[in-house]
């Protein structure tokens, strides 16, 4: 009996070992289908309140490689000129009147609403998470992702990926206790040119913010070669020069 248990355990373990690298490759494909490795993008963030009132923000985003990301607020006027910079696990906020970057955390929300800095300044999923295949149907695969370090904003993700085009459809973000923090839905696929076909709308809602919804709308995204110095604290006041 003991030998049977050992064999079953080994089979289960080998099955897990086979599934994880394949699941990680699915996540890498999802990342590549969402965006080039280095790109510029123009996005609009809309926070919608239960009474229907909306607040809108526009950003200019630059990303390079695995962990360099810079974001410049373009509107409204009250936020214009603010910038955030992410280098790996480090994040800074630049306010034009202060003339100096200040360290912030990924859990902070610079503009309010359901999205926080971790959502707006997110790195590739394959960089921050390791994956297992939980289940699949004819049309989609469901993956369980676990954060590689404790500094990642969400400890666990559940990810729905369409089999046909390995496009991300839905993500549930959970804390270490398994509590659901927010759900992201990826909709309205659009051809952005340069071979990039991806969802243009990310809608999010959270049980912690009942009645509130937030949307990120991709207006433009394209591959772009960007020098490393654009992702330094000294360049945060100059990000607009790259538009």
């Amino acid at each position, binding site marked *: 009996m003991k030998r049977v248990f050992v064999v079953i355990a080994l089979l289960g373990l080998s099955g897990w070992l086979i599934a994880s690298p394949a699941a990680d490759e699915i996540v890498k494909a999802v990342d590549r289908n969402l965006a080039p490795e280095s790109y510029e993008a123009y996005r609009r963030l809309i926070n919608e309140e239960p009474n229907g009132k909306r607040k809108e923000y526009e950003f200019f985003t630059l990303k390079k490689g695995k962990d360099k990301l810079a974001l410049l607020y373009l509107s409204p006027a009250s936020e214009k000129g603010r910038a955030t910079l992410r*280098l790996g696990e480090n994040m800074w906020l630049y306010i034009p*009147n202060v003339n*100096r970057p*200040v360290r*912030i*955390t990924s859990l902070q929300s610079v503009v309010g609403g359901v999205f926080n800095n971790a959502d707006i300044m997110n790195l590739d999923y394959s960089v921050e998470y390791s994956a297992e295949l939980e289940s699949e149907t004819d049309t989609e695969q469901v993956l369980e992702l676990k954060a590689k370090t404790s500094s990642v904003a969400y400890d666990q993700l559940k990810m729905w990926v369409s089999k046909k085009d390995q496009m991300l459809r839905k993500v549930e973000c959970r804390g270490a206790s398994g509590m659901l923090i927010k759900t992201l839905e990826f909709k309205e696929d659009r051809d952005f040119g340069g071979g990039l076909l991806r969802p243009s709308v990310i809608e999010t809602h959270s049980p912690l913010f009942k009645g509130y919804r937030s949307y990120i709308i991709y207006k433009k995204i394209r591959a772009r070669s960007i020098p490393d110095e654009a992702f330094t604290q000294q360049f945060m006041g*100059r990000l607009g*020069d790259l538009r």
Partner: protein
Amino acid sequence: MKTWLGALALIGSAALGHADAEAALELSGNLDAKFGLIQARTGSPAYRLGLGKAPLSQPLTQFTLEPYVNADYATSQAGFHAKGHGLVDDDTDADFDLLELYGTLSPSFNWSASAGKKAFNWGRGYAFNPVGFINPAKDPQNPEQPQSGRLALALEYTKSLEGPALSALSLLGVLLPPERTVNGVGEAQATGAAVKGGALLWDTDIDLMGLDRGPGERRLGLALSRNLSTNLELHGEYGALWAQAEPAEASGLAGFRYLNSLNTTVIAEYYRAGSGRDYAYAKLSQPEPFGWVHFTPSLSAIVNLQDGSFSASAPQSYKPFTNTEIIFWPSVFIGPEGSEFGSKAFEQRYDVWLRFYFG
């Protein structure tokens, strides 16, 4: 004000005629309309000096308009930046200051130069900066208020690195004209120089800075900042004034910034001033408590640990509409007679700010 705006328009139209067709002069800023109700400390020397000559009944009121106007024109390699501030406190009088006016030249991503009047902000502290050798004086109760710059010529080099420990290096050199001038001219030997080296090393911001304005004012400083966890940041500064080849006066700061699961931000700092005084500073802010959308209350206090006096304020910010902000800002200044905050001209004040953004 008219002359300044006219000059901006001329520069803008000239700039638009240049080769870079996409660059344009961008105007932005905000108008602050402030109304204050003030209980003065009529017995204080500060009150007698400022307002004592004209006997006024209490409480006092103050109504001011403060426009902040930014003009920015930038191509990929050159730029022009101006920031103006106006103060209107009665129907017949208005003042206008140029807070910043400088040009920039950036021949590459590594190099950048600026010339003009520019506000520098050295240090990693929030309310105090012992290493802010060339910073303008700031109000610790409102550190994000725009400040007036200084004339300077600056050159900065930045290099991004892919090392496992060292991620970025920067070096900034600043040439400062003499502080004392007569009819616009000063002594060449009184020209000052400042330098700041920065690095991102092991996920820690490390800045080393120095200022030389002659034997009487040589300063050295160090500033650090690091995230200890996803919601806790530590920072510190140390600045020393050197005279006759040894430290004559030193100031230091240690502080942290903490974000809890309720989205409350706490900033706390201990500051040892070069004069020998010790201060404690704390600020709490809570965006949208109890589901009150667009509302952010905060509370801050500065305590002089030597004489026990303190100032406390509780700005309550409400942003119901895009590009507008309403702030109710009560402040108190408490302390025994002769103490720092107990000698302020005002005992209490209650301000309402209406802020309108444009751009």
